[in-house]
């Protein structure tokens, strides 16, 4: 194919990728959007295939990778989506590093150097950027994967002078980048890549489990920038456009997640927040607070007689695999004439939008699933709120207590409802390690037990 036809085919593919993202503006158009993405990718791959000589080997490599990808996509549990996404980011990172090394190995083949000459100077900077972003994405995503899948503790791993070590390494890395710019050779290139790989690990280990939704969005963004960086190196607009779309998408998601947790992006990156579940519910003020507890039957009675119920699901619901049970419970309530809706906090799951997918999997109609901003005004007119597997996202301290570490974080205003039911295993604190005043309100009733068991008991009582 001529260079012009290739460029035009890439343009078509780029437009299709934009339509893919556009399709996600509503569930109704989203599947068509995904199909556009598949067509766009097919066009990009087939067009590129005409430029290659070893197309048989390339097709074999695609078949092998594609089969692995397809099998994983079929088998993955929806609760494990964050791990899968992190693992896939690492593959993009590694692929970017490999392409950069290959480009440096044979720049003439890419048309970015004349035979016998060194790599163009502008391409050297781009190669450096593409490689280090790719390398950081690669190892950083592996650490995120290990943390999310529980193969490594979610606790922030910190040591004295951590930030100085990272800064120092960053400066040394740029130093070798400059050396590579002045005199391109393998030595500075490989040292710089090795430092970037190490930095990827060091940047992610201090970040705690609670901040993982931000980290995973950030690495999503990096994987896009890595692809765009390689696009600059190879003067390939296809890579630049697709990479930029992904990069800006990840950046926006990181921003949304930070805002939902009231965390500054920089302090997330610097790490150290959210060491996992706390043990005691003691608030430290020495006063023994009292709470009311009840049975599943009591909860069923309260909800059965209500005219409106809002369910606030948290990740604990998915951990207990109670999504299907809760959907069944909603059906029973609906039959009794109760309006049931679900209120979703942006960080209800382990990644942006995770809870929506988990509920969708349990066949909860998406019309019933309402985002925080839309439903917050309606708690005051709601008879019963059922908080299940959630904690920090309904903690009124975020609104009322200026000394609270989560002060300013947007919350679901469950405390405004007439009655609050909280299903929890014990009085233990949530991710942020804070006590929750919601549990001690006069209108709150605690129902202790495993979320799935409690919901099943409520179902029995309702039917």
């Amino acid at each position, binding site marked *: 194919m001529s260079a012009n036809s290739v460029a035009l085919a890439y343009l078509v593919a*780029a437009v299709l990728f*934009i339509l*893919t*993202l556009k399709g996600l*503006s*509503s*569930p*109704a158009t*989203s*599947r068509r959007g*995904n199909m556009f*993405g598949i067509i766009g*990718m097919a066009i990009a*791959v087939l067009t590129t295939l005409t430029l*290659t*000589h*070893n197309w048989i*080997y*390339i097709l074999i490599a*695609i078949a092998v*990778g594609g089969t692995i*990808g397809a099998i*994983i996509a079929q088998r*993955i549990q*929806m609760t494990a*989506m964050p791990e899968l996404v992190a693992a*896939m980011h690492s*593959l*993009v990172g590694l*692929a970017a590093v*490999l*392409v950069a090394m*290959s480009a440096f*190995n044979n720049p003439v*083949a890419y048309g970015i150097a004349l035979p016998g000459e060194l790599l163009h100077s*502008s391409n050297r900077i781009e190669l450096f950027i593409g490689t280090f972003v790719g390398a950081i994405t690669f190892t950083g995503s592996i650490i995120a994967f290990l943390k999310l899948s529980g193969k490594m503790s979610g606790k922030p791993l910190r040591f004295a002078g951590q930030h100085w070590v990272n800064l120092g390494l960053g400066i040394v890395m740029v130093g070798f980048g400059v050396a590579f710019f002045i005199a391109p050779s393998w030595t500075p290139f490989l040292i710089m890549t090795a430092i970037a790989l190490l930095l990827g690990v060091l940047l992610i280990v201090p970040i705690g489990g609670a901040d993982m939704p931000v980290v995973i969005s950030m690495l999503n963004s990096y994987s896009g920038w890595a*692809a765009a960086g390689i*696009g600059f190196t190879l003067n*390939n*607009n*296809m*890579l*630049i456009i*697709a*990479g*930029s*779309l*992904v990069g800006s*998408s990840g950046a*926006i*998601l990181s921003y*949304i997640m930070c805002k939902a947790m009231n965390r500054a992006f920089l302090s997330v990156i610097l790490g150290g927040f959210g060491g996992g579940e706390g043990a005691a519910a003691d608030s430290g003020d020495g006063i023994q607070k009292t709470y009311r507890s009840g049975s599943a039957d009591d909860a069923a009675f309260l909800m059965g007689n209500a005219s409106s119920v809002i369910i606030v699901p948290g990740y604990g619901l998915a951990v207990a695999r109670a999504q299907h049970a809760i959907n069944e419970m909603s059906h029973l309530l609906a039959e009794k004439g109760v309006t049931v809706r679900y209120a979703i906090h942006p960080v209800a799951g382990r990644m*942006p*939008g995770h809870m*929506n*997918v988990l509920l*969708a999997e349990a*066949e909860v109609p*998406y019309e019933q699933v309402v*985002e925080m901003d839309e439903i917050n005004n309606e708690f005051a007119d709601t008879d019963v709120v059922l908080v299940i597997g959630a904690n920090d996202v309904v903690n009124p301290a975020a609104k009322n207590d200026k000394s609270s570490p989560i002060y300013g974080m947007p919350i679901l205003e469950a405390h405004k409802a007439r009655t609050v039911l909280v299903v929890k295993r014990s009085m233990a604190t949530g991710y942020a390690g804070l006590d929750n005043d919601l549990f001690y309100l006069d209108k709150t009733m605690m129902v202790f037990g495993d979320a799935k068991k409690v919901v099943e008991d409520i179902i029995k009582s309702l039917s």
Partner: protein
Amino acid sequence: MSGVDPVVLNLTVFVLAIFVGYHVVWNVTPALHTPLMAVTNAVSGIIIVGAMLAAGPQQIDVGTVMGLVAVMLAAVNVFGGFLVTKRMLDMFKKKSK
């Protein structure tokens, strides 16, 4: 325009693509943020284009082998990403019945 450095043209495309991405992504409904991440994962598999070019030269050397490995890795992303997105979006369809 013939004198324009390719870097400048690349930068033009880059900046405009970021603007498009910014506006399109803000319109994505929050309910579909997980499928958004899965599909952008597939789209970032576009690195497969770079990988194929790396694997392309007739003469097989260490560079083409690295390219082939990269093609395989990126293919995992492309297939896995689009298929898992489809699986998720189908769940959103079922419920509206």
